[in-house]
């Protein structure tokens, strides 16, 4: 049995509020297998983003623990990159695209030339070659989110964590970005965890879907998506298994099943 990429062990999260303690997560346990694409879905406000902040080491659970490759998480771990929903804020508006992507490379101690090369490669991977001198706010929403994906993969992470990465772009751009994420995952063999409220998207992208439900939230079910890769927007979404899974997950999220 190999060590999972991320191991969530009996994690609970409580927030003190003026009206008493707010129990957000209760006893979440789940292992993210190496190389898998895992989506976390659940109704709004269930605590998906809280769980994601715990996975990235931006917050510490009040109970239980999270391990990345067998090591207990205490702060943001090496080899893990994050893409947040709000690209207008997560990209630094005072830096050009090139400098934004180079920012997390500061720790890598690369030479100037190596750093440039890494930035160029990352931009090419997301199809944005030639935008390095633009400012992020000069680009469209979809392009900005591509930049944040490029910035994430520039550090050559082995784990990519994304919080509703495509929530604020139009439908066509969303499809393109979904396929881009699958390509990136193939090219680099990255283990990916994504929080989303879009069930179609979760089914389309994932190996496994974790459904959170309840207050405090617990793992309602883990759904395996046994549709073979490579997937395509046309064929996969017309597959009868896609429709069945979507209906099933939708029912669980709504608490109907």
């Amino acid at each position, binding site marked *: 049995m190999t060590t999972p990429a991320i191991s969530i062990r009996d994690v609970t999260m409580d927030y003190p509020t003026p009206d008493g303690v707010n129990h957000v997560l209760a006893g979440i346990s789940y292992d993210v297998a190496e190389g898998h694409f895992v989506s976390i879905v659940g109704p709004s406000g269930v605590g998906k983003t809280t769980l994601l902040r715990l996975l990235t080491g*931006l917050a510490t659970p009040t109970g239980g623990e999270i391990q990345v490759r067998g090591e207990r998480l205490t702060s943001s771990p*090496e080899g*893990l990159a994050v893409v947040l929903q*709000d690209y207008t804020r997560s990209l630094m508006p005072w830096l050009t695209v090139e400098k934004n992507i180079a920012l997390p490379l500061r720790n890598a101690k690369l030479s100037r030339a190596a750093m440039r090369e890494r930035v160029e490669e990352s931009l090419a991977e997301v199809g944005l070659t030639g935008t390095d001198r633009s400012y992020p706010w000069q680009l469209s929403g979809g392009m900005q989110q591509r930049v944040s994906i490029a910035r994430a993969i520039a550090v050559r992470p082995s784990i990519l964590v994304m919080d509703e990465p495509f929530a604020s772009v139009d439908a066509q751009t969303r499809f393109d970005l979904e396929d881009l994420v699958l390509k990136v995952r193939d090219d680099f063999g990255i283990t990916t965890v994504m929080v989303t409220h879009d069930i179609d998207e979760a089914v389309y992208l994932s190996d496994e879907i974790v459904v959170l439900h309840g207050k405090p939230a617990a793992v309602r079910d883990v759904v395996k998506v046994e549709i073979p890769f490579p997937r395509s927007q046309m064929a996969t979404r017309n597959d009868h298994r896609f429709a069945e899974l979507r209906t099933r997950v939708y029912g669980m999220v709504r608490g109907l099943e």
Partner: protein
Amino acid sequence: MMRVWRWILAIIIGAWLPIVFITWWWNASAESTNPYFPPLSVIWEQFKVNWIFELVPVHVVPSIRNLLVGFLIAAVIAIPAGTLIGASRSGTRYVEPVVDFIRSIPPVALVPIFILLLGLDAQMRITSIAFSASFPILLATIEGVRSTNLVVLDTAKSFRLSRSAILWRVRLPGAMPTVFAGLQVGFQIAFVVTIASEVLGSGFGLGAFTLIATDSFLIVDAWTGVILLGILGYLLNLVFDLVERISLRWYYGQKKLS
């Protein structure tokens, strides 16, 4: 081409009131025999004698030098200090009441105290300027750094940037629009204190010139000093705006698009 026209139009719109005012002043004062309000034509003749460019090295250069040196010292001290204080939760709580208290004292009222402490030389003047200008810069920097967007902060932390990199490369640059608002106020205060600090015990500088002229009943000279002060203040503000526009190009560019 459109931009040039818009630019010219903006100048015309901005200039008409001053032109009307100067024309009115010129005509209304033309026959004046009141010693306190000499004809503008007389003031203008004396203005050319004094300030193009006979007295500029004696009276304008020291004032501008004190202003710029004092202002730069204020910025160089207040921006890093404000960044450190703004990033620390307890720092803000401890420092802010003290800063607010000192800031509430009119800066000009502090000049006599600096004279007592430091005497009457240029060093005293520069110290008063730097001291008075630093408070708005300090407060603006604290506020700007403290209100760093949480998404920005999370992103920087997830990159495992060091604390100092987060402070100087993420929080401070993001706070620069707010810092510049403080710099602008600080610059205006620095200008006022520059002139006020020359009123006592100095033979040089525009403030000294204007005061001495008034005391010696050289009313026309005093008028030329006042007018030059107005022109200088206006030009310095233009330069400041230009520096701000260039430094915050990203900020104005983004604002224009949204």
